[in-house]
């Protein structure tokens, strides 16, 4: 077990730190809409110009192909520099869509989309969840009927992040009529400007529009936009989810340590006070979350679901940190500011991408081997 940087890695850290110091935007990112899109794309374009886009993507696809060490170092510096949250509207493109195309896309798909993603020229959104299948992805019902060399898509997605400002969508649909559960799905690139698409934005409880419902009324998508094989979408989708859960979360997880430090500065609690005790525990937990983040990257997992532990641990710690902030803020907790905004946003941590209840089921069943029960 080693956690030691080579001289070259040390130099890499210095380079990263200096670049970030010179380039991180001073103002906080806008919450949503066109301003959020413009801000995020500008920041990504800047990163790309500096050679910091697609840091974990392989060289051959235009990424930086960083080793695990350097990925960690990069994110350590990134969050220390208070750079914009990695969970912005470029997240899906960089961390879902791009890696999926790299793994399963055709040469044409890769050639067209990957450079645009890296350069900060296209926003992607995810079209997985449906009204009837929030936690239960396998039950999805949006259909794609093959007509000649097109798919004709009908149905509805929900909880699609940034659909209102996205250029493309990674769309999971049922292409084999009458198929059940994981079978007969396809993973398709959907141009959001296609005729027949209606986007209805959903305001969230923090007053921001991240989510949307997307309706598909005979939307025609060329079969050439299917990623991987037709009807093989589940395998393609699982690929994406695995990627998300391992790599892309580093930035978010490490960010929490910074947030705890900011909170300690804000509170300046007298020693021995109740709030000092809470902050001391949060600090220790943030350290442990960081340790889990490192281990997720730097150790072979014992089961493929090991990552679900750190994911849930992060989600609930993020909520505790934000709740503590509200208690510290006093009357300012009633105003709109960065803390209250983050507090309200943090309610999604245990809901989006699989509720905490589902995550605990997964840990119990797949990590610990407890029996699966049909009705659950």
């Amino acid at each position, binding site marked *: 077990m080693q956690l030691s940087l080579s001289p070259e890695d040390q130099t890499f850290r210095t380079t990263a730190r200096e670049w970030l110091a010179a380039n991180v935007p001073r103002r906080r990112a806008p919450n949503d809409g066109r301003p959020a899109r413009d801000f995020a794309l500008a920041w990504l374009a800047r990163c790309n110009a500096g050679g910091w886009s697609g840091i974990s993507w392989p060289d051959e696809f235009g990424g930086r192909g960083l080793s695990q060490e350097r990925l960690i170092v990069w994110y350590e510096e990134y969050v220390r520099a208070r750079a914009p949250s990695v969970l912005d509207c470029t997240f899906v493109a960089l961390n879902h869509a791009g890696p999926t195309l790299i793994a399963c896309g055709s040469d044409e798909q890769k050639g067209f989309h990957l450079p645009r993603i890296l350069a900060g020229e296209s926003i992607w959104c995810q079209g997985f969840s449906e009204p*009837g299948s929030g936690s239960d992805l396998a039950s999805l019902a949006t259909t794609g009927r093959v007509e000649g060399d097109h798919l004709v898509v009908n149905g509805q997605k929900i909880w699609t992040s940034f659909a209102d400002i996205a250029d493309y969508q990674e769309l999971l649909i049922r292409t084999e009529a009458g198929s059940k559960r994981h079978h007969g799905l396809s993973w398709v690139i959907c141009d959001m400007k296609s005729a027949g698409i209606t986007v209805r934005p959903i305001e*969230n*409880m923090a007053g*921001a529009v991240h989510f949307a419902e997307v309706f598909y009324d005979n939307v025609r998508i060329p079969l050439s936009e299917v990623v991987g094989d037709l009807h093989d979408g589940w395998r393609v989708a699982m690929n994406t989810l695995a990627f998300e859960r391992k790599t892309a979360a580093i930035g978010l997880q490490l960010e929490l340590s910074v947030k705890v430090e900011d909170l300690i500065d804000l509170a300046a609690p007298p020693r021995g006070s109740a709030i000092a005790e809470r902050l001391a525990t949060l600090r220790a937990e943030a350290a442990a979350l960081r340790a889990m983040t490192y281990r997720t990257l730097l150790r072979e997992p014992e089961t493929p679901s090991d990552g679900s532990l750190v994911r849930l641990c992060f989600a609930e710690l993020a909520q505790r940190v934000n709740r503590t902030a509200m208690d510290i803020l*006093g*009357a300012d907790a*009633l105003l709109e500011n960065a803390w209250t905004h983050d507090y*309200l946003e943090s309610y999604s941590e*245990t809901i989006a991408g699989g509720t905490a209840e589902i995550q605990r089921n997964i840990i119990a069943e797949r990590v610990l081997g407890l029996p699966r029960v049909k009705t659950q």
Partner: protein
Amino acid sequence: MTCDLNLSGEQRQIIDAAAAMLRTEYPVDRRRRWVADDLAAAAAFGMFGLGLPEGDGGAGFSLVEEALVHVLSGRHLVSSGSLATALGARLARAAGHAELADRLVAGEAFVCAGVPAGDSVLLMERGEAAFALVFDNRDFELREVGAALASEESALGHGASVERIPRVSKGVIARSAEPRMLAIADLLVSAQLLGVAEAVRDLAVAYAQVRQQFGQPIGGFQAIKHHCANMAIGAEMLSCQLDMAAIALRDGREDGAFQVAALRRLAPHVALANARLSIQVHGGVGFSAEAAVHHYLKQAHLLSRLGSAADILDLPAPLAPLVRVQERN
């Protein structure tokens, strides 16, 4: 029977009447397009004179009935001005401003709630209020406030507005640090927090009965059941303690301050915990602005800033609270 915690017929009547009025005048749906509550309907119902003697323009009910009505107000997310006006009327009368008190009871003027924040006072959901009741920990100040001027900010990013005015005391009409007045404030604030805790429990239970996942209502899953059970336990604790505190205050019992302090300590905790659990039970819908549940969460944060619990460790614990009391009224 000298001890009886059932609602009397009269109590049931006032509760039913209040519930009907709130359903008509303050449907929870109104929060979707936020405008500050017009409290005229509440005033017309008599909400601000409920606990005052009939001679003072009040309805002659006791603090118990008043608290129960404020529970319902909490369920309907009625703006905190309802608390401030009810308390302001009391404060005005105690300070000799009988005319102002009458106007507040009659719904001819309103009071909004305020809390100090640094050099400012934050006025909550001011609406048409010409007065503010500033809750400064163990102290109240009833102030006149001029025309709306200052920056309006959006409380917690959604819904209720907050207006910032200078803290410096101008236009002060009355001030009080009278323990009974503080206790009544804590009682009514807690009553509204209980309303929040009950409402989000009911929303979660209703949603869990209809929302299907994995081929069954999510209320069939044990984790969801247990979240709902936890909300029920919290609300039940708070509701029972509200009865205790309201009765003790009404009857002038020695343990009144203790019972209120216990209530006020638990109320924000239970309301916030229930709101959190209810959002979780609602899943994605609960996180959206469209469901009502987030308004309750924000209302809980807002109400939690009002009044202030006496430190319960400073008060003697009543280990035998049942005593003989003089009839009041």
